[in-house]
């Protein structure tokens, strides 16, 4: 805790100092440092753990500035813009901000604006802007596509980006970075402030947040002091390097460093070390599964012993399952609630309100509660099933106890043996303050296309000036002119080699040489399609009413994919109850209450988050280090020992490959620990190769830890180094990807974000299914006739990162070169049991379509022959 007396007293005006005193607080060192940075006009990134007074630290400089502003009768425009990744967080912060404003009697208007804000308030905000506006990246993108955006923001003095670590590496972050660059043009003195939870490498975020482009290398910039490029005969190796210790970096790295060093790093206090325990269900850690059903009694008892607990799970279905199980045990009738993204908004708000009033003992929730919304008196966080990454876990743990001087308490509940290893590795990483690193992001071109269109809707733009503006945004600093030109051409005419759309341009060049939107209708259309979130099509779940089975009360929403697995009459758990599917009509799912206590689909699948590279590495190290096994429960230890004696456990950087016969099939199991996505891609590519090698592969199954392939022929004699050779990522990948449903899914996302197809037309909504259908048709046609089109490039990049994790697979193949440890076995090994137990539980997409048709045809033939 900082001593306010030790800092320059003039940083905190008297009114504020008095307010701090009246609350029994003193301003913390990082809060004062943020005021000092503001006074110097510096951009700043504040990294502080949850509960460190982070939000207040972000707002204090603006509050002080506004409090000292001379009164005025005319509206002065927005002074501070606050951007949160979550609507709920923006509303929550608005509430929290009102406390200091009201208690100090400051003449400041602070208002939120989200997609849920009413029409009247929105209209008023346009005419009479508040001093502080709290909103989301999507609303900002909409603002920036308005005519008159420049005037609206011309007095903007500060923009605060909250929870910036969740945004910077996503397409939403790309769009936000571009809009920031725009705002900087409107208000050149705008100051940028980022607020982030603890991250491993703050420079990644500084680079994203910083304003300014890297100077073009040619012609060399002259007279910029340290940045001067020394050329030709004058160049002396090692001489005149801008800062000590970076002599080896290339000019572009130096220039990039010079850009992001304009953002000062401010660190909050470290906070008390969290106390993280693991539930060691002695002798009862299951071999496989994701539900942690075995531990529910213990989880329930722990909840009973706590004041208020948050029970985090990784998927909505795990949430439903855990909620059911806990209520089954709830003899004390503890108020336990459920919170996840599929529930109806009003139901979620009820839970949130009850939580804020301290009426609940536990909430079972998904990542919808990950971010820093203040839910009051939580004293325990329970993580059911594996955390998948250390950073996310720290965020979740931070939800317990928003007071820094007391440690947060958390309990890990592993659902299977590999998760037990993973939880242990995560605990140790948290204790050592080590987190998952993230690669630097390169801005997506479909997002840039949307932004260029938005700019044209707002005001005419000059091509070169916009190029410079775009390159001042972190993710687009390396954007080359050719790509920018291609994007603008795409926005205008679709960017096709066949030039038949020239007369239908969406943006046109005027006689003044400036680009503008073709007409108001086109601009209006664009504004309805703003945003970089493409959510899967969702269907409304309603209770079927009466004989006609019409839709009654809405109980929530489900993603379309879930229904693929259900037939009418099937039972499933939703919103904490068991339902039977009655039918699907258009965009509505009709259900009726079921008395069945044993639903057909209680839950499925693992986590939607991939195991982080960092955590996976630690799991492999833990596994190899026998000294370390002491910390594990007896049954897990025994499992490792039998594996060691029966097969082998390789060093952390080696890859264990087991082969054994089972039934009439031959199995090959590998344990890369690189996450389900990378494993699935690897399996797809390996089966193609095995096919060519004559092994006749029949199928495969993957989880976060391992991958198993089975075949008709034995595989122990194969050349494994050749099988896993890196050239797998060349032609094999390309030819598989082109046919894959994942490319189609990625293409759909890019088509929507880039504006090629519309999310919705004014006045009529398309259902997701129709969109799927038509983008697949478009994809097929485009791939045949212009395979190098911009959007196919975008889709390929998205699929390679988001859907199939090629980068991670590439690193794996590189790591294991010459390091494959083959263990030929006569029967299965202890490690292989969990993965073999998953066989038959998965439905593989991909080529499944043709097989479904063939199966339906067999039915008909069987019927005809009977």
């Amino acid at each position, binding site marked *: 805790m900082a001593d306010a007396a030790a800092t320059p007293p003039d940083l905190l005006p008297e009114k504020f100092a008095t307010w701090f005193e009246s609350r029994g607080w003193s301003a913390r060192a990082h809060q004062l440092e943020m005021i000092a940075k503001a006074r110097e006009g510096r951009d700043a990134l504040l990294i502080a753990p949850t509960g460190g007074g982070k939000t207040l630290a972000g707002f204090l400089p603006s509050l002080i500035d506004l409090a000292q502003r001379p009164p005025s009768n005319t509206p002065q425009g927005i002074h501070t813009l606050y951007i949160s990744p979550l609507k709920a967080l923006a509303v929550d912060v608005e509430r929290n901000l009102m406390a200091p404003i009201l208690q100090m009697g400051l003449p400041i208007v602070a208002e939120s604006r989200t997609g849920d804000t009413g029409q009247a308030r929105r209209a008023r905000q346009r005419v009479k802007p508040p001093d502080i506006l709290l909103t989301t990246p999507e609303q900002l993108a909409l603002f920036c596509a308005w005519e008159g955006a420049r005037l609206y923001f011309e007095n903007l003095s500060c923009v605060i980006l909250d929870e910036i670590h969740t945004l910077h590496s996503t397409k939403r972050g790309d769009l936000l970075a571009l809009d920031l660059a725009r705002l900087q043009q409107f208000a050149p003195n705008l100051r940028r402030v980022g607020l982030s939870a603890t991250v491993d490498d703050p420079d990644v975020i500084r680079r994203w947040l910083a304003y300014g482009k890297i100077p073009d290398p040619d012609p060399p910039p002259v007279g910029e002091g340290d940045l001067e490029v020394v050329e030709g005969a004058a160049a002396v190796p090692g001489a005149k390097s801008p800062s000590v210790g970076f002599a080896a970096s290339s000019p572009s790295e130096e220039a990039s460093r010079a850009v992001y060093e304009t953002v000062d790093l401010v660190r909050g206090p470290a906070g008390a070390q969290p106390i993280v325990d693991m539930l060691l269900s002695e002798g009862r850690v299951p071999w496989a599964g994701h539900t942690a059903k075995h531990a529910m009694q213990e989880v329930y008892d722990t909840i009973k012993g706590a004041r208020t607990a948050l029970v985090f799970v990784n998927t909505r279905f795990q949430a439903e399952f855990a909620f059911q199980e806990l209520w089954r045990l709830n003899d004390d009738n503890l108020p336990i609630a459920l919170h996840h993204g599929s529930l109806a908004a009003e139901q979620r708000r009820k839970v949130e309100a009850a939580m804020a009033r301290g009426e609940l003992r536990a909430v079972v929730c998904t990542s919808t509660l990950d971010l820093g919304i203040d839910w009051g008196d939580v004293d325990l966080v329970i993580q059911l099933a594996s955390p998948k990454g250390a950073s996310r876990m720290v965020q979740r743990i931070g939800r317990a106890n928003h007071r820094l001087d007391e440690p947060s308490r958390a309990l890990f509940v592993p659902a299977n043996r590999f998760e037990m290893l993973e939880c242990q590795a995560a605990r140790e990483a948290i204790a050592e303050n080590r987190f998952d690193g993230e690669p630097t992001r390169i801005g997506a071109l479909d997002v840039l296309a949307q932004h260029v269109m938005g700019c044209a809707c707002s005001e005419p733009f000059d091509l070169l000036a916009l190029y410079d503006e775009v390159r001042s945004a972190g993710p687009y600093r390396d954007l080359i002119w050719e790509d920018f030109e291609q994007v603008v051409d*795409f926005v205008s*005419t*679709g*960017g*096709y080699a*066949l030039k*038949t*759309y020239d007369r*239908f341009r*969406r943006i046109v060049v005027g006689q003044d040489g400036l680009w503008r939107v*073709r007409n108001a*209708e*086109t601009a209006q*259309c664009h504004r309805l399609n703003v945003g970089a979130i493409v959510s899967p099509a969702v269907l409304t779940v309603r209770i079927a009413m009466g004989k006609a089975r019409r839709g009654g009360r809405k109980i929530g929403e489900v993603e379309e994919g879930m229904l*693929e*697995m259900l*037939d009418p009459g099937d039972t499933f758990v939703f919103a904490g109850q068991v339902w039977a599917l009655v*039918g*699907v*009509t*258009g965009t509505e799912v009709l259900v009726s209450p079921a008395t069945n206590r044993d639903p057909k689909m209680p839950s499925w699948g693992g986590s939607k988050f991939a195991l982080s590279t960092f955590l996976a590495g630690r799991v492999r190290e833990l596994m190899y280090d026998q000294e370390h096994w002491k910390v594990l429960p007896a049954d897990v230890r025994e499992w490792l020992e039998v594996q060691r004696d029966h097969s082998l456990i390789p060093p952390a950087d080696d890859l264990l490959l087991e082969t054994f016969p089972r039934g009439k099939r031959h199995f090959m199991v590998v344990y890369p620990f690189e996450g389900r996505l990378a494993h699935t891609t690897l399996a797809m590519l390996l089966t193609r190769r095995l096919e060519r090698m004559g092994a006749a592969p029949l199928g495969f199954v993957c989880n976060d830890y391992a991958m198993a392939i089975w075949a008709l022929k034995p595989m122990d004699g194969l050349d494994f180094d050749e099988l896993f050779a890196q050239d797998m990522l060349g032609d094999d990948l390309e030819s598989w990807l082109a046919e894959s449903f994942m490319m189609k899914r990625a293409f759909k996302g890019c088509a929507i974000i880039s504006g*090629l*197809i*519309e999310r919705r037309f004014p006045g009529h909504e398309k*259902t997701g*299914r*129709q969109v799927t*259908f*038509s983008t697949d*048709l*478009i994809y*097929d*046609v*485009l791939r*045949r*006739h*212009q395979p190098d*089109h911009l959007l196919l490039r975008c889709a390929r990049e998205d699929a390679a990162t988001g859907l199939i994790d090629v980068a991670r697979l590439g690193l794996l193949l590189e790591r294991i070169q010459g390091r494959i440890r083959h263990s030929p076995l006569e029967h299965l090994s202890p490690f292989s049991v969990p993965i073999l137990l998953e066989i038959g539980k998965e*439905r593989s997409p991909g080529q*499944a*379509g*043709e*097989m*479904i*048709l*063939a*199966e*339906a*045809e067999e*039915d*008909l*033939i069987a*019927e*005809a022959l009977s």
Partner: protein
Amino acid sequence: MSALASPSPAYAFAASPCGGLRTRLNGAAVTLRASGALWLEEQRTLVVADLHLEKGSAYAMRGQMLPPYDTRETLRRLQAEVMATLPDAVVLLGDTFHDRKSEDRLARDDAQTLRSLAGATRLIWVIGNHDADGPRALPGDVADELSVAGLTLRHEPVEGPQVGEVAGHLHPCARVVASRGSVRRRCFVTDGSRMVVPAFGAYAGGLNIRDAAFAGLFSQPPLCGALGADRVHAVGWRSVAGD
């Protein structure tokens, strides 16, 4: 559609060597081809419906820049069918153009492809609701409907029992359900007396055959010929579901 709830009647069908499905329609021997074209063997006539040429540019006019390659893709597929069957006549079963201005927007080489098709075979344009005027400058015969081998070829199916009718217009599409999941494909649909053929155009969407628009067309639960990658799959009414 309660009349259709009874078990599927037996249909006689057989796979043809090229992946098509051979059956009889009101007595005439027909092959349902994997491309979505219908082949009348004895008359050596190829029937394709709902090409919707220049649908892409129709969207572009309204500001949605869909790839402008739909016309050449559709014509490429049609050319391939003509090469494979060497027909005496090709019947374009209506909605060949997406709108009345489509012909003017045709790229020169696409128009040329159509002209050379008309040179190689007899091209018959049946009028549809999207292209009520028929072609202006392109060659070929124009007809409201056509009688061939006891079959009536027209664009829009007429309500009530229509023995021997072959129509398009509805863009039939089936969601085929099997134990391992479901898949949505364009399809032929027939009760042995009449038939609705799938849309042939690259950008033509699909309407589920469980939709009310198909109710009342068939006297018994129809057989569905779902288009697979390179063959047509015969699927019974019980294996198809609504969207």
